[in-house]
């Protein structure tokens, strides 16, 4: 399918060669008792569109998933859409480790302010605000410049799927994803449970036998983990509701979710929150939980995401512009402040898959160039650590 030449892509070139499509100052609390302080500093700053922050429930515990927590926080701190990061903590050794890892990952301003050294909570708030003011001129002096297609690191996500997801928004996103991969960009499919039953078909699209085997292996590991929990979802899939909606086989259902990744060959498989090392299409082993997936993408240097939804899920990221594509026209009309584009026209019969694919491609370019998404306008900044996943393996 041919896609017409889009407008020029622009972004912020980072010292490590990565490109950002936003240029944030991120306030990152490493203890849940400091979430409110981060939020207060963010909202009190006059330049609301430049400052971003997150809130989460971690308070320094180290469990068997410490590697994963460490990787997520340190990776999130250095996402290419961030120009400077102000880490705030209580002043513990584990926080120190995260900050050191972030500094090793990317050369950029990373401040670390602790409650222990602050002289009190109110004073810490003042110090964080001063730190924001200090880096503000530096960050805002970085200007957009012309970017190559390889700048795109696209995250593919779906949530609140419906009977139309697999015939409208998902395959249309696949058309756009294929085009970015062909142009030298990177695209990442995720959600291991959603490819169960179709993994052999995706493995057949792997560039090497090793990558194919890795796709089979991540699904097998997931299958073992759900068997361990005493659940066997396979026998109940597709569900009665799916069958009534027209889905016949498990392969068909999983292919519908995987169609976000079009038909391009797979370059590699990534563990949760790992950064891709070369351009191409990847599969990332993530939970099905939307926000955990989005957080893992952010820690993996994803700089733009398209999220297909049948229900208008409000989810957004503090650092990644997240474009919402509606799978059906009724919802797109009902929830206009949550939706960026409507792919439901395919089911209405008024637009083809190729036409909607072209619109998604153009929207990705526009948003990369600075157009705000519905989730950004609405201030949606969800963040979830993926905590216990993997602990039973």
């Amino acid at each position, binding site marked *: 399918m041919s896609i017409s030449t889009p407008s020029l892509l622009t972004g912020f070139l980072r010292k490590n060669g990565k490109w950002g499509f936003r240029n944030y100052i991120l306030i990152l609390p490493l203890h849940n008792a400091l979430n409110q302080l981060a939020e207060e500093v963010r909202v009190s700053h006059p330049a609301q569109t430049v400052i971003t922050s997150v809130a989460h429930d971690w308070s320094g515990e180290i469990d068997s998933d410490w590697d994963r927590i460490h990787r997520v926080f340190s990776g999130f701190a250095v996402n290419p859409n961030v120009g400077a990061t102000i880490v705030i903590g209580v002043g513990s050794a584990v926080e120190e480790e995260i900050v050191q890892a972030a500094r090793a990952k990317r050369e950029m301003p990373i401040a670390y302010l602790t409650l222990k050294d602050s002289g009190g909570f109110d004073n810490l708030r003042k110090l964080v605000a001063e730190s924001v003011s200090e880096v503000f001129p530096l960050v805002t002096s970085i200007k957009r410049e012309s970017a190559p297609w390889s700048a795109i690191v696209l995250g593919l996500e779906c949530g609140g799927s419906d*009977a*139309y997801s697999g*015939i409208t928004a998902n*395959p249309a996103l696949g058309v756009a994803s294929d085009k970015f991969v062909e142009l030298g960009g990177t695209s990442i499919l995720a959600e291991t449970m959603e490819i169960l*039953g*179709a993994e*052999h*078909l995706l493995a057949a699209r792997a560039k090497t036998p090793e990558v194919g085997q890795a796709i089979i292996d991540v699904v097998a590991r997931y299958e073992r983990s759900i068997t361990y929990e005493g659940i066997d979802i*396979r*026998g109940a*899939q597709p569900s009665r509701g799916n*069958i009534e*909606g*027209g889905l*016949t*086989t*498990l*392969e*068909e259902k999983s*292919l*519908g979710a995987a*169609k976000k990744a079009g*038909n391009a060959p797979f370059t590699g498989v990534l563990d949760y929150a790992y950064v891709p090392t070369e351009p191409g299409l990847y599969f990332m082993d993530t939970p099905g939980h939307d926000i955990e997936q989005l957080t893992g993408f952010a820690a993996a240097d994803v700089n733009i995401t398209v999220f297909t939804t049948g229900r208008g899920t409000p989810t957004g990221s503090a650092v990644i512009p997240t474009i919402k594509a509606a799978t059906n026209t009724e919802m797109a009309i009902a929830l206009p402040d949550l939706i960026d584009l409507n792919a439901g026209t*395919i*089911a*209405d*019969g*008024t637009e*083809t*898959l190729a036409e909607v694919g072209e619109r998604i491609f153009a929207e990705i370019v526009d948003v990369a160039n600075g157009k705000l998404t519905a989730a950004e306008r609405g201030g949606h900044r969800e963040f979830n650590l993926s905590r216990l996943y993997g602990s039973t393996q």
Partner: protein
Amino acid sequence: MARVNSLIVLDARDNIAIALQELPVGMRIEQSDIASILEVKTIIPRGHKIALVDIAKGDPIIKYGERMGHAYLPIVRGAHAHTHNVIGDRVSTEPTG
């Protein structure tokens, strides 16, 4: 009035298409992405699959350009392709008798 298609063909390699409305028996469908006029042989509910070609028993069912299962009974062009004649290749038990 904008053009309105009755079917969506998800990939040029597919041997089935998806009904965008309920298709009554005898309806003749003419669409740019279908080789020749398709006559509906059995009622097709909205969102369900219709065979674009004659599919023999054991033939793969191709959707999105990929194999999603196979026919365990023959399906004529224009007929409904669903659980009564299609089954997954992998996690499934083929009906017998």
